[in-house]
């Protein structure tokens, strides 16, 4: 009996499974009349709660950007979802490769960490203020936590792009 149970292969979860069981939530912004949704964006429930705090007016102790945090995030999400070219240079990286296939989306005041389940399909896991992340050096902790979450969801071998070049994760 034990042998038979061990022989049963559990199917790998799909994106639909993850949405249906509440592990991730689809994130949407309003698109302009001629925009097309060319990429996909998801977030964990914890990340969605953080987004709600931003919508409720949360601000960092020292605002670095010249637009509000909510405006920065809306612009970032809109650029991502509508398939705009994201700037990937040494100083102004919108998406940055980290160890263990963890990526970072950036605005002046915000850092968002997550991973690509597939090309053009990002899952946001953590969001925080730029200053807080730098002051407390949270990069390593976020990387480890995201890797652990992927393992818990059994996605490491399937829904995870491991490449670290922009072309590995974005088609435009």
């Amino acid at each position: 009996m034990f042998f038979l149970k061990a022989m049963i292969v559990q199917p790998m979860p799909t994106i639909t499974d993850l949405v249906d069981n509440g592990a991730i939530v689809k994130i949407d912004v309003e698109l302009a009349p001629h925009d097309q949704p060319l990429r996909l964006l998801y977030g964990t429930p914890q990340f969605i709660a953080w987004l709600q705090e931003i919508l409720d007016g949360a601000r960092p102790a020292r605002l670095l950007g010249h637009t509000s945090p909510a405006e920065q995030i809306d612009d970032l999400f809109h650029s991502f979802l509508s398939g705009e070219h994201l700037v990937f240079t040494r100083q102004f990286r919108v998406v940055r490769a980290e160890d263990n296939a963890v990526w970072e989306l950036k605005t002046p005041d915000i850092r968002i960490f997550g991973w690509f389940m597939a090309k053009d399909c990002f899952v946001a896991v953590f969001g925080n203020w730029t200053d807080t992340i730098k002051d407390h050096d949270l990069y390593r902790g976020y990387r480890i936590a995201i890797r652990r979450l992927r393992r818990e969801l059994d996605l490491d071998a399937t829904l995870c792009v491991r490449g670290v070049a922009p072309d590995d994760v974005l088609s435009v």
Partner: protein
Amino acid sequence: MTFFRFDIGARSRTAGRLMGRVRRELLRAVTEEKQAGLTQQELARRLQSGRSNVNRQLSGEAEITLRSLADLAWALDREITFELRRPDQTTGQNIAPQTSTIGHKPIRIIAPKSSDE
């Protein structure tokens, strides 16, 4: 919850996306010029400005005035095009309030009811 719409309102959306778009256009021009050999130091020299000031403008940490936008365009040898127009109403475009990227599930085909039902 299967989806979350990040909605900041039309006014904030217009402001944030316009400023973001201006910066991305500038960054794209800077990246192109960098590949052609222009350093940020040289860009700052042309503008008679500090390199850190130019950096902060490009990164979104400092406001870009119309004057500084024009100066950057000049220093990067780019023309500026600007237009205000009423939204188009054409067949096949998104209807903004109804536009959604939600669609993770496969399309369900519902069979039409038969006449005796």
